[in-house]
């Protein structure tokens, strides 16, 4: 199968306050198949977010190699990584992290401007907002929306520039079960309609079945890989 991301023996070491080294990732090998919903599951502190940060070029591994669409991240300059994040990567953070000074429309518009989107931005914004069911509220500010609504806007923002991969760190963490399930349905819908690959972390066992590939992590290592494809 065609993998959009391959990680080989990825280690991430943090220097602790007492001078000791702590390995958050202890030689992880992972591949993310293109056009799938890949879930990284595990308990809190198992290294999910650290791995996600490394895969999304937000963080640089201490050892090992990550290939994004066939290109080694180690060979990329900081500017290349920034360009990659602008154009080929979308983010949905646990904290939602919509830009509070921008309304829903502008939040999406901002990501399109970052990606230097050539096509008519307005129609694209409306399309993705309707995709997440938020077209009616596109002029609302983040503070005027519920957590679930904000998360849908964040997803629309991530998907708008047509990235190759969307990384979502605990996207349902702050949502109730029902809203969480709706969010997952939305991810599935995006994969179908936009052809995007989604990598998400979660510790919610109810969502496991919805993933195409599920990696389980413990103490910085992959302990299980399951595929529903």
């Amino acid at each position, binding site marked *: 199968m065609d993998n959009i991301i391959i990680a080989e023996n990825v280690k991430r070491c943090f220097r602790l306050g007492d001078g000791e080294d702590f390995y958050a990732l202890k030689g992880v090998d992972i591949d993310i198949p293109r056009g799938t919903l890949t879930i990284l599951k595990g308990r809190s502190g198992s290294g999910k977010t650290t791995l996600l*940060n490394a895969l*999304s070029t*937000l*963080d640089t591994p201490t050892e090992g190699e990550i290939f994004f669409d066939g290109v080694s991240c180690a060979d990329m300059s900081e*500017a290349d*990584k*920034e*360009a*990659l*994040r*602008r*154009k080929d*990567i979308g*983010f949905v*953070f*646990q*904290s*939602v*992290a919509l*830009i*509070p*000074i*921008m309304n829903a429309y*502008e939040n999406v*518009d*901002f*990501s399109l*401007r*970052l990606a230097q989107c050539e096509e008519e931005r307005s129609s694209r914004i409306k399309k993705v907002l309707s995709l997440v069911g938020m077209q009616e509220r596109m002029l609302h*500010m983040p*503070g*005027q929306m519920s957590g679930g609504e904000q998360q849908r806007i964040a997803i629309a923002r991530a998907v708008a520039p047509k990235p190759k991969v969307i990384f979502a760190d605990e996207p349902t963490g702050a949502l109730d079960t029902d809203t969480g399930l709706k969010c997952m349905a939305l991810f599935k819908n995006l994969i179908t309609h936009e052809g995007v690959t989604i990598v998400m972390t979660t510790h919610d066992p109810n969502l496991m079945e919805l993933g195409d590939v599920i990696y389980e992590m413990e103490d910085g290592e992959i302990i299980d890989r399951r595929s529903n494809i």
Partner: protein
Amino acid sequence: MFKLIRQKMKNKRWLTACLTLGMTFLVAIFVCQPMFEKGALNMLLRSSFYDYTISENKYPAVIGREDSKKGEDGDLEAVLNEIDGYDRTWFKYLADTDALEIQTRVKLTEMASTGFYGNRTHYMALSYMPEFGQHITMADGQFYDSEFDTAEPAEGNNEYAMTQVMSAIDDGCYPCLISQKIMNERGFVVGETLTFDMWKNKDGEKLKVVVSGIYKEKDIYDSFWYIEPDEFKNEMFISREAMNAILEEYSCNGMSYIHYVMLDYDDITSNNVEAVKDYIEQFASIDPNFVVTFLPLLENYMSGKKTIGTLLWVLQLPILGMVLAFIYMVSSQIAESEKNEIAMQRSRGLSRFQIIAEYMVQCGILALYGLILGLPLGYGLCKLCAGTTDFLTFDGGGAYLYGFTPKMLVFGCIAVVLGAIVIIIPIVSYSKITIVEHKNLNAARGKALWERFFIDIILLGTSLYLLRNFNIQKERIRFDVMMGNKMDPLIFLDSTLFIIGFGLLALRLSHYLVRLVYRIGKKKWRPAMYASFLQITRTFGKQGFISVFMILTVAMGLFNANTARTINQNNEDRLTYGDGADAVITERWVMRTFKDTRNTTDYKYEEPDYGRFELLENSSMVANQTRVLRLDNTDISKDGISNKVTLMGIYSKEFGETANFKDELNKDVHWYTYLNELASNPDGLIISSNLAKLYELQIGDAISLSRMGDTFSFSDRFRGSMTGVVCAIVDDWPGYERYYYEEGEEKERYLVVANFPKVVNAYQIAPYEVWVRLNGDVDIEEFEALLDANKIVPKDLTLLQKDISDMKQQPLIQITNGMFTLSFIIALVLCALGFLIYWISSIKQRELLFGVYRAMGLPVKELNAMLTNEHIFSTFLSVLAGGGVGMVSTQMFVKLFGIVYLPEKHNLDIYIYFQMGDIMKLAVVVALMIIVCMLILRRLIRSLNITQALKLGEE
């Protein structure tokens, strides 16, 4: 709890430090008030006494008694005892105020009557002054009395005259001394005898006195000569023994006495002035013969005190408002950063009172720091600003009058209470809400209060309405100030209202401008620009506070600087114009009387050697000098309308080289044009335009001037007339001040300028002034030494440099310069700190947002561009707006302020001055502030860790 508070304060050490600084400044400004007031009042007293000395040429603080005794009461010893008795009574009471030192006592007793000398009758007085002999030298002759031992006989005594004196004494005449004035004006000489017909002894012999000597003062600056020798126009001084003998032997019908006590006016201070005034008023009310010279000075002081008190508050109010706003801003930042914590505490059941109490304890600690640091800072700043001689210029001149006063502690405590209230206000509003309400509130944040209720327009409208009214009532305000009535503080506060109103309006407009710029390029903006424009427009309410702060700081800084410069420079201009030259010297001329051809007594002046003045040019200090004959009692008459004019005789070329005069006066016709007209026409006259208007005179018209005698005794003597042709009409002329005030009434002076020889030909030579142009600033003492070396003894010496420095020591000018300087320094410090705090804490608060931006792929340089854009459209626009507001308010209000400081009408209109240096100082501070801020922000952004920043959102 204390541990928790200490930890909180430590965590927010920068904001806490700024709050401490705000409190310290607040205390400093508050404690400056009583210290400045006390010092300014002492200075007001000093300058009142000093001005009196200069204008009246008399010692200023004198109390005393003038009375006369008749018949048998006229015993010298009894009179002297009575004088001492009064003296003791006064000082018994005055001792209650604070011990007033006495400089000198002057006692004069005299008997007056007409006496005969030759074939003329003279009204003369036989006078006795204790200690007279110790203060005189003999110009001619000598005095025969043990008490006058110190008065040495004059050198080169005329032996014949002395023989006459001796023989007259042998004949029973009493020897006496006369002044040079009497000698010159009455023609008495040593050895002459004067007979008093009215005073006879029991044998019917008339009282005779012989002039045994001519005295002159040993030292003209000796306070013994409160009554100057020249004022003794009738007095013939005799010894105590002679006075006693005459009173015993001759049928004198009474005697009068004068007793003056010169108080050391340094002892009259703002502490005891009211008590001194009360006692002196009581003495004056119960004793009609009590004499006091300085009661009007004390009354002026009392009205000046009101003005100074008001002015100090009014000048302090804007800076006080700014410091309070600064404290509020910092406190709001703290409250904002702790809002989650406060909301959590509320949700966990803590009462509002408990939360507020926790912050009150913090306030208490800050108040303590504020007091400990603010008191010495206030003292130091007050001392520094008390020594200002100009805006932002210090020399420490009058600072010695400013000292600690217990009131400062009270004011310091009031300041910390006020500061604590302002700190608590934002906490109180945050303590109202729980975490749920807090989140809802965040969503609903909108426009700032002032923007929603159009406070800017209301303030601006009110201030313009007040300004219009003040401008209509200019004349009344001018009159009120001159009469010493209480000043309307609204005149000053109006400008503050205007600055705030206009500043807010400018901010509103700049906001519209940012929106407009954003809309123009909305589709094309790069992500960084897009985000930054949205940041500016969407956080306008929050950011508005720092923008208002910036605008007000720059505007008030500029306005204060321009006001101070304008007041100082206009005062200098008026002094320069009024004095006419850098130095004006008048010598004492001897007036000689003589019999003319019709055997009537006439007089003429002896001109001192002018060559001594010409030699001054040899010194590097002096550039030019010229003679200027100024005669005030000259009359012009036409069609039955007569008026006094000031006639000025000049040498046009020298005058042009020596006098100070602004080229742009006289409607931009250079004044040399008029001097050339005069030089080419020996009979030409330059007249003032008000004179031309009064008599409908035009160039080419002939006018005639007549003149009477100089002194009281010759005032009815016609001195001559002069006819000339009007060759120029001027509005302004060096030394010609058109307006003067007499008993509160405004009057006009008329001027005629003629060639010096023409005036002398018409009226004979008279005491003239010598005008001197100096080569730049010179040391006054060195210049006086130069005059001394050239044997020039000035009777009056006007030095422009000294006048300007005296002007700057006037309390009203001094406190204005001092307070404006103080405000300017504090405003700059606060502005710089306020700006840095705002930006650094704003970046700290946006850390998560910047993390998101970076995660989304926004490069660091784009983030920097984003902040630069925010600086340009918020900081830079605010600074520009502040500059604009400062300059507009200067144009609109400074002339109105001018009326308060320069109420008298003058040839020179009030001209608005500003110095590029002040603008540069402000610009450098603002630029430094922005650069430092940008450097700090860049560093913060460079060190930003994306994954760490994103974690913030999860907390």
